[in-house]
């Protein structure tokens, strides 16, 4: 367990060093390239901000008005059956539909229940391991004019389901142990 925790912490420095060493070996102007790339990152965030602002307000309204709690209460009998924390379900539902809405919702969940709480950690993992399924399928099929997608949505949603159910029920036990032993 200690090793796995170490692996999590070491992942970023290791990946960064490998890339920088490669850059040096191939005699690139590493720093100039870095700055150039970072500048592009600036644009990404600036473009992202208005979307996030709008969705933060929408999610904040859902939370403060009590709609989110109501929703969680409604679905809790089903989620209890699979021993999934029902507070996570809104995120699991929104995640495949919209990237920025799920960013706002995940931030809200982590703020409400604590970043390092069990629910906060599950929310983090869902955010990190899933993609905006509907958006991806739509953009890839529409660009070449494909209309009949047959089983693609089903297959992709099976993936989301496995991630969420698997993670929330079975993996959770493992992960909770993982976090507890390392705290």
């Amino acid at each position, binding site marked *: 367990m200690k090793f796995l925790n170490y692996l999590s*912490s070491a992942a*970023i420095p290791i990946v960064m060093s490998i890339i920088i060493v490669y850059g040096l*070996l191939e005699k690139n102007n590493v720093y100039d390239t870095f700055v150039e790339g970072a500048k592009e990152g600036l644009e990404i965030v600036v473009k992202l901000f208005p979307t996030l602002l709008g969705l933060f307000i929408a999610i904040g309204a859902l939370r*403060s008005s009590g709609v989110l709690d109501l929703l969680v209460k409604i679905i809790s009998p089903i989620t209890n059956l699979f021993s999934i924390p029902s507070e996570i379900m809104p995120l699991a539902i929104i995640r495949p539909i919209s990237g920025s809405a799920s960013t706002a919702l995940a*931030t809200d969940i982590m703020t409400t229940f604590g970043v390092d709480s069990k629910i906060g950690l599950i929310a983090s993992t869902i955010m*990190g391991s899933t993609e905006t399924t509907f958006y991806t399928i739509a953009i890839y099929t529409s660009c070449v004019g494909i209309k009949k997608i047959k*089983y693609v949505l089903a*297959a992709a949603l099976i993936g989301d389901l496995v991630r969420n159910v698997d993670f929330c029920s079975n993996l959770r036990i493992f992960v909770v142990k993982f976090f507890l032993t390392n705290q």
Partner: protein
Amino acid sequence: MLNIIWPVFILISFAYGILNGNVDKINQSIFESASSSVQLCITFFGTICLWNGIMKIAQKTSVIVKLTKILKPLINFLFPECKEQENIKQEISMNMVANILGLGNAATPLGLKVMKSLQKENTKKDTITSTMAMFIVINTASLQLIPTTVIAIRSSLNSANPTKIIFPVWIATLCAAVAVVISTKIFIYLDKNKYKTIRRKR
């Protein structure tokens, strides 16, 4: 999509809040949400620019070429129908590497290029081929090595250890990727057999 979701979220919450007498809370949350989105973006400025800079270095080196070579056997297994088409396989692996490194901005255009190349080979232009299906499904599987966005969110909320989720994320991603590939392979198999039996009946 958001043109529907966004107004629905807001109107439902406002209506529900007013009915429950929660108007003050909603008012408070509107301004709190606005400032917390700024807070998150400030953290994003740091992490996303940093990662983008590092990945720019990667793009200029042979790391990507090396990774594509490593992926070759996997791609042969996933896309058996492109065995002969080296250029398509090259494009697919470039897209996968971009996804793994978290180069969202590079991955999508590369992916669209793959779709265009695959469409050229497609005999029924409005229907998806099995290669396309597998390719799209893999793109929905989020193969990202370092989940930068979540780490940024976690550090903006002052987590004790923002990177701690990397390993659990790998496990969840891997489980789902395996599930997705297996189910897609089964779907492709069933789909092909369906057409065979239809042909036989004719």
